[in-house]
């Protein structure tokens, strides 16, 4: 369920999987960055994060009809719906906000379970087809190889999104607050902003990111009953590997996972099941004790 089918006309065994890995990695990056926000700023382990992505994916499947306008519409609807779901989740979390993080995580899991069930009830148990805009349906030549046009465009769009995200976090006031909050969770409390509003804002933003990833990535990790779990797992692994310290770390981890899932599987098919595990173990072994400084403060 995690493996990505390689391009339709696979000639070179390495170039195409490598490109797929980039597309996959950027997708996971956009999805995971929402989880990083949740976790870093609001200190909530959001187990419903995969659900937010799935909302975007199902929106894409329902709205896309092969035209450009439908893509824009799907993006708008998907982002808004996922952001609204995030805000709703924040509202549900309010009564247990002063409780412990264990019950918060469990609550988000309950929401994920119920929400997943609702999605299946609304869109049916079968994995829906996703139609990309007609102009992107074909393939293009990349260094002598045919490659799905949509994926190439996706790489560009996702890269733009990643740069935009970087600029927002680096250059804007809101981004500065986010970075400060990740560095020092106590600080948010001193700012005088109500924690409920911070939570709502963070979860809505995380939802928007996951929703955007879900719509744009629907042709890559399509909507289905396993989607939420898959995306949650990949995002978690990215956070574990990349830590909370820097966006560069998150990006590197996401790209590494993308390549492992595509190029790694192409190169070492027999070891494929263990590659993600091995990557996690290797990274943690190299960095021995701390992922980011915040991993352990004892």
């Amino acid at each position, binding site marked *: *369920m*995690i493996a990505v089918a390689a391009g339709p006309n696979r000639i070179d065994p390495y170039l195409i999987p490598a490109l797929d890995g980039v597309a996959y990695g950027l997708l996971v990056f956009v999805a995971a960055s929402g989880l990083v926000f949740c*976790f870093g700023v609001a*200190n*909530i*382990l959001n*187990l419903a994060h995969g659900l937010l992505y799935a909302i975007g994916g199902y929106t894409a499947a329902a709205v896309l009809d092969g035209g450009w306008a439908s893509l824009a519409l799907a993006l708008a609807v998907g982002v808004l719906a996922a952001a609204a779901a995030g805000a709703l989740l924040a509202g*549900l979390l309010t*009564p*247990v906000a*002063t*409780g*412990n*993080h*264990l*019950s918060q*995580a*469990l*609550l988000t*899991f*309950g*929401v*994920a*379970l*119920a*929400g*997943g*069930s*609702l999605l299946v*009830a609304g869109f049916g148990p079968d994995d829906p087809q996703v139609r990309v805009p007609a102009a992107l349906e074909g393939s293009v030549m990349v260094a002598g190889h045919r490659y799905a046009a949509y994926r190439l465009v996706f790489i560009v769009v996702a890269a733009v999104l990643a740069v935009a995200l970087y600029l927002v976090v680096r250059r804007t006031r809101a981004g500065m607050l986010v970075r400060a909050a990740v560095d020092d969770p106590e600080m948010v409390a001193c700012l005088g902003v109500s924690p409920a509003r911070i939570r709502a804002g963070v979860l809505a933003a995380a939802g928007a990111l996951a929703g955007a990833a879900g719509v744009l990535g629907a042709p890559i990790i399509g909507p289905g009953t396993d989607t939420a*779990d898959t995306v*949650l*797992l990949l995002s*978690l*692994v990215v*956070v*574990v590997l990349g830590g909370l310290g820097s966006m560069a770390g998150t990006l590197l981890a996401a790209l590494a996972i993308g390549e492992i899932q595509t190029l790694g599987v192409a190169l070492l098919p027999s070891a*494929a*099941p*263990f590659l*993600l*595990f091995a990557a*996690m*173990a290797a990274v*943690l*072994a190299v960095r021995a*004790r*701390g992922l980011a400084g915040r*991993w*352990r*403060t*004892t």
Partner: protein
Amino acid sequence: MSGEVIRRARGAVAALVLAGLVVAPWVVDDYTTALLARTLALALVGVSVALLTGVAGLPTLGQTAPYAAGAYACAVVGSRISDVGVVQLVVAAGAGALLAALTVPLVVHARGVIVLMITLAIGELVVTVLGRWRSVTGGTDGLAGIPAVRPFWGLPALASDQARYLYALVVVATLIGVVLVLLRTRAGLVLRAGRDDETRLRASGHRVALHLSGAHIAAGAIAGAAGSLLVVAQQYISPADFGFDTSALLLLGVVIGGTASVGGALVGAALVIAVRDWLFGVLPGYAPLVLGALFVATVYLLPTGVTRARGRLRPPAAPAHQPTAAEQATVPELRR
């Protein structure tokens, strides 16, 4: 005085529950008996979750990983090497302990929510591996046709659901007894002290990482043994038995039961699993929806499940904590 009363009442309840469990297979039908056997296995995993979450202070969503390792090891041994229950139990516990030992470096230096996240990733990765490593695990189809177990050399194979259930009951009761004894040694005391104040414990000269690693491996062994019971109960296993929802259900059960109490974890986990099985029986299509709603409702009803755990640890103690203790009690799972 009231402490004595509570202790006696608790003993009486435990005896009643045990008696009920022994006669249960003759009261209900075979299908329910098989379900009960599986619930016992999951309740044992719940105990391992409680050991990590409540006693050691490492909240976990990944105990399905050693559980799965034990189950698959037992299934492979059961179909190819030996149908003796003791052998299967030891192999399964060993497999669970080995997996837990391998993941110690990932877990033992993290705290709080981060442990939740890392263990969840480990559990999900194990399920992914199970789904893909077809030559050994049979992929997503799972392993079927595992021969019936015989508890000990020379004993007959357990052919009926009742017999298998009673086997599971005996194993669970024995292992719980071992856990309760071990918790009364210095190990339990030191783990509780570490949950209170890890820095202080280290300053006293204790090797905290070593204690936590030990707890992690022991919990892995228990979950592995539970995996062997699952194989006995179902004679069929697939990756679906070890999904992320199982971990979350067990953690919820443990929180309901009061995180640090072994008996509470058993009851809580069994309750949650029973509700799930019942829901899937009566509402096939909407079970996840109702289950999710129940999750949310339960969390609202038990916003301070962990705090209650502390009260329960020491029932005779007066409830009024002083500020420092109260602070500790609200977020004991977050030792940062």
